[in-house]
């Protein structure tokens, strides 16, 4: 039955494994395994900065029913990496009823630093998507991780027309689970505009910051900063003495992207 519904389509199973290490002062991508449609760019450097910037590319243009992406990232001690997705992640309509799944696992060793720049995930009408992100890090390592969830192709009038969007984000420091952000949106069963859910917002933005230097970050100043833009709802909270979470609920993608990147760069410069 499943095969018949698939109409001969072979699902994509993208895999990307990346291992980073410091070599002669610079962070290098010393191990990479890639299976289409996932692919990593070569390392790029800004001037003398030893941080490796790598683009994650998805050559298929988006995920279709039943597709799976697995991304695994390991940073050896003291390595410094900036990862950017080449473009927004598009989840196409699930014509077979199957779910697209993505699993991202990250391991940061002592004093390693990873920046995952915020990019948008767009579930198209009738899309089904499930993403599991698991991060294991040390107390001495640093993480700045951003992500944005869209309600659909808003410009085409697709707003909460997808079927399901499930996200589980687990953050472990020294083996202790310090944050578990889990939501499961089913637009057919939920009225997002109700008080307490998304209210006027369409976009969800999240930022996760973990670093030994977080204890010096003045949280009230960050709150003042994040609340300056009045067209969206946003706030900051401490997860532990060395971890902060920022959340935005926004009507407009453009403003959210500007705000989340502004906070990202502000914190990146501080840590």
């Amino acid at each position: 039955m499943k095969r018949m519904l698939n109409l001969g389509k072979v699902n994509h199973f993208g895999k990307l494994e990346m291992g980073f290490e410091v070599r002669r002062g610079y962070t290098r991508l010393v191990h990479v395994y890639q299976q289409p449609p996932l692919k990593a760019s070569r390392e790029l450097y800004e001037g003398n900065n030893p941080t490796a910037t790598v683009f994650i590319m998805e050559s298929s243009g988006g995920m279709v029913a039943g597709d799976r992406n697995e991304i695994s990232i390991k940073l050896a001690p003291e390595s410094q990496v900036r990862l950017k997705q080449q473009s927004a992640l598009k989840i196409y309509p699930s014509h077979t009823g199957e779910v697209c799944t993505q699993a991202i696992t990250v391991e940061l060793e002592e004093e390693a630093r990873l920046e995952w720049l915020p990019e948008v995930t767009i579930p198209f009408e009738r899309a089904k998507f499930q993403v599991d992100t698991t991060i294991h890090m040390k107390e001495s390592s640093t993480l700045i991780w951003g992500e944005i969830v869209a309600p659909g192709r808003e410009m085409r009038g697709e707003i909460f027309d997808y079927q399901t969007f499930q996200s589980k984000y687990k953050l472990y420091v020294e083996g202790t689970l310090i944050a578990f952000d889990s939501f499961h949106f089913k637009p057919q069963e939920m009225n997002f505009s109700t008080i307490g859910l998304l209210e006027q917002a369409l976009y969800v933005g999240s930022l996760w910051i973990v670093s030994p230097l977080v204890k010096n970050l003045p949280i009230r100043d960050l709150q003042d900063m994040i609340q300056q833009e009045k067209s969206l709802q946003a706030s900051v909270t401490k997860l532990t003495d060395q971890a902060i979470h920022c959340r935005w609920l926004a009507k407009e993608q453009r403003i959210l992207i500007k705000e989340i990147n502004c906070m990202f760069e502000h914190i990146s410069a501080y840590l």
Partner: protein
Amino acid sequence: MKQLNDVSSSHSNTVDTLTNLSLLRLLQVHDSAFPIGSYTHSYGMETYIQEDVIRTKEQLVNFCKVYLFHNLVHGDALLIQEAFHAAKRRDVARLTELDELCGAIKLAKESREASVNVGKQFMRTVAPLMESPFLLQWKEKIDREEVKGHYAVLYGIYCEALGVNVFHAVMTFMYASISGLVQNAVRAVPFGQNTGVQALHELLVFVEEAATTVMTLTMDDLANNALGIELASMKHEFLFARLFIS
């Protein structure tokens, strides 16, 4: 009383039955005079009250329904159910995991701290009343700081020791949570006592529905979809003047 028996028999998959004495004991821990400090927590509701978006009974009921179905059902209530079953197996390792999950899913600092503080008060109050070695073993773990002592997990252990069934444990917890919110709204908005009574009365049918839903869930369903409430709870910490701790 008859009605209670009916509810109890419709959930006869659970071994425990609600005896008169355990029912009374359950009523006592959920009495507003029971000193666990629930009147000091709004779990983000005060932010909405200050933003003037909870002004009518209807708005209060809507807020409570979202808190019930999109926060409690998939969060604390589900954790109570799981903790209850783990306590029955005397599975301390699982309970330790649940305690960690209970804190990790509460991203807003004040809601997370409220869960620990109410839990501590609850333990302090019930420990001298109960002769349960397993509950005391959990208390010692909290005292040794091996676990945080989140209220939902502790309440699950307590109810198992009390001998009530898991359905009633979950349902009365949600009743008390919603009743606490309504009482706090009556003071903070403010509403008249009758408005509060009517709001809670309207919500009772949803509390029962929510408890029935919890029985169908597994730990895979652990989630918090009430992102608005969570954000309000994050913002609460920075409000200028506050009646409530959370």
